[in-house]
């Protein structure tokens, strides 16, 4: 404990804090980029998964298989799979890019099911009305199904992304300079583990807490049609 206190001024230096802030930014940006792109690709996957017709059967099977497989693999294994797969194709892909791709790969599988659940909650009669007016499947998805499904989709999708901020600690395993990796470095330099990882823990909390608050705010707002309209008006102004 005395050692810990003695280290305080040495640890909380400008350069150490800049290092950690940089690492926190790295963690946050790779999670957000990964989850954002993952969400977009999950939408594509959900759309392809509902392609009608016999010819699209292999496509539908592939979409279902992707979700079922990747939901059952530990994230750490996904990271290694992506790392080694990409390294066989090209050697000059940055570790950050690899981490983002791994996050994406994983986020697609999880958010695809969230999106599908939301879309399926929209009554089929809404789709029939659109069909009867010659809406294409894509237009029906974007103008009728998704706008009604957001209240169902967004809260769990945001919750997933926020909780993923902490799960990205695993990419420190492949040497991305994110928060946990820097923590290990500082710990190796001789700083007290409690001090270092206590600070790291606080950083993770400070990143996720406001985002989950935002998620809860949206959830409350989206819960009622009146709240949704209010949000829509805010967006328009």
């Amino acid at each position, binding site marked *: 404990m005395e050692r810990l206190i003695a280290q305080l001024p040495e640890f909380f230096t400008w350069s150490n804090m800049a290092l950690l802030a940089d690492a926190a930014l790295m963690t946050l940006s790779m999670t957000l980029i990964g989850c954002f792109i993952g969400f977009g690709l999950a939408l594509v996957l959900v759309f392809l998964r509902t392609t009608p017709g016999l010819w699209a059967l292999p496509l539908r099977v592939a979409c279902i298989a992707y979700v079922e497989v990747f939901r059952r693999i530990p994230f750490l294994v996904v990271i290694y799979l992506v790392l080694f797969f990409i390294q066989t194709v090209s050697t000059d892909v940055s570790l950050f890019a690899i981490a983002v791709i791994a996050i994406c790969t994983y986020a697609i599988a999880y958010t695809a099911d969230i999106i599908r659940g939301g879309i399926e909650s929209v009554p089929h009669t809404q789709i029939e*009305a659109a069909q*009867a007016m010659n809406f294409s499947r894509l237009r029906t998805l974007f103008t009728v199904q998704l706008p009604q499904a957001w209240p169902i989709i967004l809260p769990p999708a945001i919750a997933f992304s926020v909780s993923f901020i902490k799960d990205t600690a695993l990419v420190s395993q492949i040497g991305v300079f994110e928060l946990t990796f820097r923590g290990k470095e500082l710990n190796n330099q001789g700083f007290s583990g409690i001090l270092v990882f206590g600070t790291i823990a606080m950083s993770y909390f400070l990143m996720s807490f406001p985002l989950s608050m935002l998620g809860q705010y949206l959830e409350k707002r989206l819960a009622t049609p009146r709240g949704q*309209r209010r949000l829509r008006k805010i967006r328009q102004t």
Partner: protein
Amino acid sequence: MPHLAVSDVFAKYGKLEVLHGISFDVERGEVVSLVGPSGSGKSTVLRTLVGLTPVTGGHVDVDGTSIDYHSARAIKAARDRMAIVFQQFNLFQNMTVLRNVTLAPTKIKGRPKAEVEAEAIELLSLVGLADKRDAYPDELSGGQQQRVAIARALALKPEILLLDEVTSALDPELVNEVLDTVRRLAGEGMTMLLVSHEMSFVREVSNKVIFMDKGRVVESGPPGQIFDAPTSDRARDFFGKILRG
């Protein structure tokens, strides 16, 4: 040549065959009503016409041209000529009344927005809801929603309007406001094919009534004949039960 000719049409819901060879004609400007016990396939007839339930046999001609329900393009063309109004209205919940009415004409048919909006407001006035243009469906009563749904269908400028039990989901006191709208359309010469349980209304507006049972047309003719002097036992039995109440 009839405007719409349905000949020996078969249709299936999954494996269950619900229409076993339906035939009838609708002339231009006519109001034709499908009546009969529930499960007789009346709504299915309307759904097959707009390609929501697959046709498994027979054929449908509009102005003498056959519609091939196995071709997506032909189904689209059919939907350009026939618009359907559903029992449960099926207005898009995420859009205002005005956008519900203007969406398909502007986005699907590619017509200029200003022109479509002006028309939409006219249609909303016709159904008595011009002041509700910025409301959302969940802010309206069932009767109001159904009138918007009718305006939405009319905005597509269909040659034939299909009305599927448009008053069945409404509270009794709201039925008349919707029936008045349909009555007015009939007066304007709109060709309509309707499924309804409102027998006195059917008798009043229809040029022809088709009595269906178990996926077949049992008999058809002018309303007076079908209601007052049905020739089949099945129709006599049905009307005997519901008209005497």
